[in-house]
């Protein structure tokens, strides 16, 4: 839960400007980007995600090293990705 997981923005959803489609280790889910007000976000950008919300924009090198770290810790990261896989975030 406290793990920040890096994801790559695939698409900003035009009908829901608070949401982006994001690729996290091959899992594509809607992530809320409303807390990154004022950041110019575009497909290809990397963000650090906590419980379905992007908390910071990061560069690709940081994203890669964060992923390496998460993969090294094993189970906790696998649990987080499994939970994300079940996530069905959408706007009303």
């Amino acid at each position, binding site marked *: *839960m*406290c*793990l*920040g997981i890096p994801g790559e923005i695939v698409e900003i959803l035009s009908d829901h400007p608070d949401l982006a489609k994001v690729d996290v280790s091959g899992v594509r889910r809607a992530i*809320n980007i*409303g*807390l*990154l*007000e*004022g950041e110019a976000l575009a497909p290809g950008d990397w963000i*650090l995600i*906590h*419980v*379905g*919300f992007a*908390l*910071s924009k*990061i*560069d690709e090198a*940081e994203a890669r*090293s*964060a992923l*390496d*770290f998460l993969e*090294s*810790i094993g*189970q*906790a990261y696998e*649990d987080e990705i499994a*939970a*994300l896989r*079940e*996530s*069905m*975030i*959408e*706007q*009303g």
Partner: protein
Amino acid sequence: MRFVDEYRDADKARALAARIAALCEPGRAYKFMEVCGGHTHTIYKHGLEDYLPPAVTLVHGPGCPVCVIPMGRVDDAIHIAEQPGVIMTTFGDMMRVPGGRGSFLEAMARGADIRMVYSPLDALKIARENPDKQVVFMAIGFETTAPSTAMTILRAKAEGIGNFSVFCNHVTIIPAIKAILDSPDLRLDGFIGPGHVSTVIGCRPYGFIARDYGKPLVVAGFEPLDVLQSVYQNLVQLAEGRAAVENQYARVVPWDGNPKALAVINEVMELRPHFEWRGLGFISDSALRVTERYAAFDAERIFRIPGGRVADPQACQCGEVLKGVLKPWECKVFGTACTPETPIGTCMVSSEGACAAYYNFGRFSRDRVKEATRT
């Protein structure tokens, strides 16, 4: 010195460890607390204590949100979950946390509808899809997850969703650090500051630690080299006779944090006058509740909450582990009566808990050291 868990940067870690050793004054022992459970995880996984000179000890702090939830709050949540027509939702980490009347998993077995979610937004979706049920989200976490809960309440209000509420257990990191600094049990030389909490609150709120207590704090990233670098920066400050807040994790943590995240927390939540922490007792102004303005989304106003206090099991020493007074393996029930499969205390439940991290990695590393010294 032993090297237990080699990784790609082991050479760099050794070089940094040598610089750390060179800074230690002969005959002086140093204790640094890593506040965040994510750092504890890194330290055990990579056996970082084995890189450090014997004069440097890392002490684990209270930064595991699951671990600090007192048993009474788990019982309160289960009480809500057992009301007719309620769907309780929470993060997976909460499912095994023992309360006085068992865990969420046990309440589910008795028939309560409790569902694991990845995000509070998933709980909101369950509310949309079940208009005839009351959907409650048990919110836990430090400032890292509080903005997500606040954003979800704002979204529920904007959509006019009337069957969604939050049982708010968010806690704030600064009062916990202050409680530890004021505790007579432990003398610390400095802090490895939490990484992700600081993305939200920034580095300024730690200023009092340097100013009023004369201790350094270095906000650190989560890779092994980040943690070692942060120890190094702490020692440089001590050697130069100064205390300051430094940001080793500037590649992610802005000095001023995330203003939007702080604004949404302030919009939806306010400080409670006091809140009980497992192991640390009642701490003033240390937790968040939903404000009057969003009362319609506050489970504590919608449901009658028993609010009982439940003493921790006598055998459990999570309190001492959370304050950094005991190492996980010094607890009487560690690894015997208390394991991740059948936890007695919270520190063994969450993957961010010091006991679970040590159980999963530390022991393993130690076995490997033994093996390596045999061959």
